[in-house]
């Protein structure tokens, strides 16, 4: 059913008239042209489509757009603020924690969500939180290292 859906997207108020049952992923990519959010599996198995709703990473392929009405949504394009990269983005770069880069937006936003819940995660807690984020290139080792580095840097509270 077509409805008006309002939410904040990367800091900007956004209003859409859409079939509100459509997946947030496709509304972001096709309607709004925010292509940083990726399709990987369409069934919530891989995490390539993760975005933040508030501080929580969700799988946008599984979220009907009406569920974000009134919410604050952040995609990978909105993570850097005022031209300053988020510590996770910097850490992914410095640790070479990516190869093809296709899972990277989802990895970073899932890690962001983890660090909000648990600012000092152990190695085991990182693995557990990231377990359902899939990377095919095999960058796992460096992704864990990047998250650890970002956690350290964020201790001052960024």
């Amino acid at each position, binding site marked *: 059913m077509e409805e008006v859906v309002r939410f904040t997207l990367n800091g900007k108020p956004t209003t859409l008239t859409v*079939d509100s049952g*459509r*997946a947030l992923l*496709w509304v972001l*990519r*096709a*309607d709004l*042209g*925010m*292509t*940083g*959010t*990726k*399709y*990987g*599996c*369409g*069934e919530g*198995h*891989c995490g*390539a489509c993760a975005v933040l709703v508030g501080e929580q990473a969700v799988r946008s392929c599984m979220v009907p757009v009406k569920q974000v009405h009134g919410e604050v949504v952040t*995609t*990978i*394009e909105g*993570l*850097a603020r005022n031209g300053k*990269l988020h510590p996770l*983005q910097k850490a*992914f*770069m*410095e640790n*070479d924690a*990516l*190869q*093809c*880069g*296709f*899972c*990277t*937006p989802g990895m*970073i936003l899932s890690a962001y969500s983890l660090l909000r819940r648990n600012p000092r995660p152990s190695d085991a807690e*990182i*693995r*557990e939180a*990231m*377990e*359902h*984020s*899939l*990377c*095919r*290139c*095999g*960058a*796992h*080792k*460096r*992704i*864990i290292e990047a998250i650890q580095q970002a956690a350290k840097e964020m201790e001052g509270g960024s």
Partner: protein
Amino acid sequence: MDYDRYMELDFTDDGPAFVMTRRELLQLMGTGIIIVLTGGEVIAQASEGRRGGSGQGLPEDFNAFLRIGEDGKVTCFTGKVEMGQGPITSLAQELADELDVSLDSVQMVMGDTDLCPWDMGTFGSMTTRFFGPALRAAGAEARAVLLELAAEQLGRPVEQLAVQDGVVFDRENANARVSYAQLAKGKRIARHAKATLKTPAEFKVIGKATTRRDALAKVTGAAKYAGDIRPSGMLYAKILRPPAHGATLKSVDVSGAEEVKGAQVVRDGDLVAVLHEHPDEAERALWRIRAEFETPQAGADDVSVFDHLVKVAAEGEEVSRGGDLKRGEARAAEVFENTYLNSYVAHAPIEPHTAVVQIEGKKTTVWASTQTPFSARDEVAEALGCAREDVRVITPFLGGGFGGKTRNLQVVEAARLAKLAGKPVQVAWSRAEEFFGDSFRPAAVVKIRSGLTRDGHIAFWDYHVYYAGSRGAEHFYDIADYATVSHGSGWGGGAHPFATGPWRAPGNNTNTFARESQIDLMAARAKADPVEFRLRHLRDEKMRGVLTAAAERFGWTSAKPAAERGCGVALGIDSGTYVATIAEAEVDERTGLVKVRRVVAAQNMGLVINPEGARIQMEGCITMGLGYALTEEIRFRGAEILDRNFDTYQIPRFSWLPQIETVLVEDKNAAPQGGGEPAIITMGGVVANAICAATGARVLQLPMTPKRVTEALRKR
């Protein structure tokens, strides 16, 4: 952002997009310096025996490898693509070093068929081995030409000049200087200079660990993949798929789909698709199509396929032979005969196959996730019935390839649909389509008969591989009497129920698993340490070197670490690179579940262009390799693929990750070898050997699922 004219692969932030046609490129010769290479030994080597279906090799008439602009920027043109394996960094390093410019001033234009020299494709770990030397030669020639120009301008002999960061200066008077940018201004260069490549001692950029140059774009979401290209008016397509390969469409009722607002159904023979401005709406409409297919009788399934393959395999072709098998067997005190099996595996890149095609008058532009942009161009031209010159394929970043993005089926689909629709069309496969349309690594069988002499030496080696091909089939041990025979080609020619193709280091995974398992079980029978047993049979200094390096780093001892834990070793050669891998695994004997705790891999790949990139590739190989070792196998019934998503087809996850250590054995004066594939080939064998060391159970089939491990435990 204007997506309509996304024509560039410009990875630096230096202003306007770099948009050129070939004609414009030629015109640019008046304003910059374009280095044209004609023929030459390196190029011949790069294209020898590997010409495209169109009869093309690397072009000999017009072969622009690089351009030095009036702004001093160096642009490298290469038909290679960036799919995560890192040439966007390593090739730029090679060029920067030969040219004596900073790495930052080199920009890469990759996989654009209008701008880049013809290329066969990005696979087989060939970029650094074959394109790299050609690129370095172009860089060295360019530098020589620039030095000549500088000598004329400065009125000094070439021998007296030096270059730093793109500025030529007099060694004796550094005030006499001129930059590449100044030299390029208003120049037209059509000459060649003799140049020699730098030696390792002269390298400044090559061999220096360098982080990825595309990382910024990839962590901010700015990096464009094919599905992110959206020309205005573009429609997303969803295509009707048969339930099994070979099924034919009997009847179709599309009326339900046509009722979906904004949906347009198009049909061209068996190609039935829904087009819509939103991909999810296109998919919703597709579900409303009622179609009947006639599915051929199911043949083999994932259990019976191995017998089928051995039965249909052609007479074997000899890969290598030495001595006399009969003589060797007569010396054997004990004979070992085993059959090793390996399953079909999927490439499963996180980015599914995607293509966008835009037809404007005569000109067709394609953006595709492809490892073979030039083949894609030819295939589109054929499908549209137009000239190859009228098709331009632009390759944005690939979200993984691993050998799977070489067939371009989705590109041809998008081209046909764009023509039917009269609008730009994007085809992006769903995950289920990806598992269906993939060209799997072929299932394969290896039969080995081998023998041990009374004093613990390998007496003979009789090796038969079915459908894994000859890559990695040859042993490298000191065995006098041996034969290696390959039955059925690597890709199967009709033997398989569906398409098969190369998968990261193709059949070498299967061959190395079988060989290293067999060597290990003989070592155990000879009551020898598996590392010592291998060294006993190795004369090749390079192989001894990597094995020794891995054993040292691992702290190898014959002692068993702890209950249910064990350490294994496996060796292999791929794409010219030598690999030794040692792993420690833990086996839960109750469940058969295997956990790999630690992996050390040592690699000799000759000259290492980017040590950081090389290590990342090794880590990626080790991590990805755990998948085919432990869980990955396509389940199918006849030509129907049962795996459709990552819930049943399990790829490696964070919880699997062992402690990984990589060792690069220095060999600077040797030519650079492959890096993207070699370290994956040992993973099946090393895990099998570690399982055996932990439990005494020998698993002869990949993947080593809990069920297979449990069976092997029962048989021990």
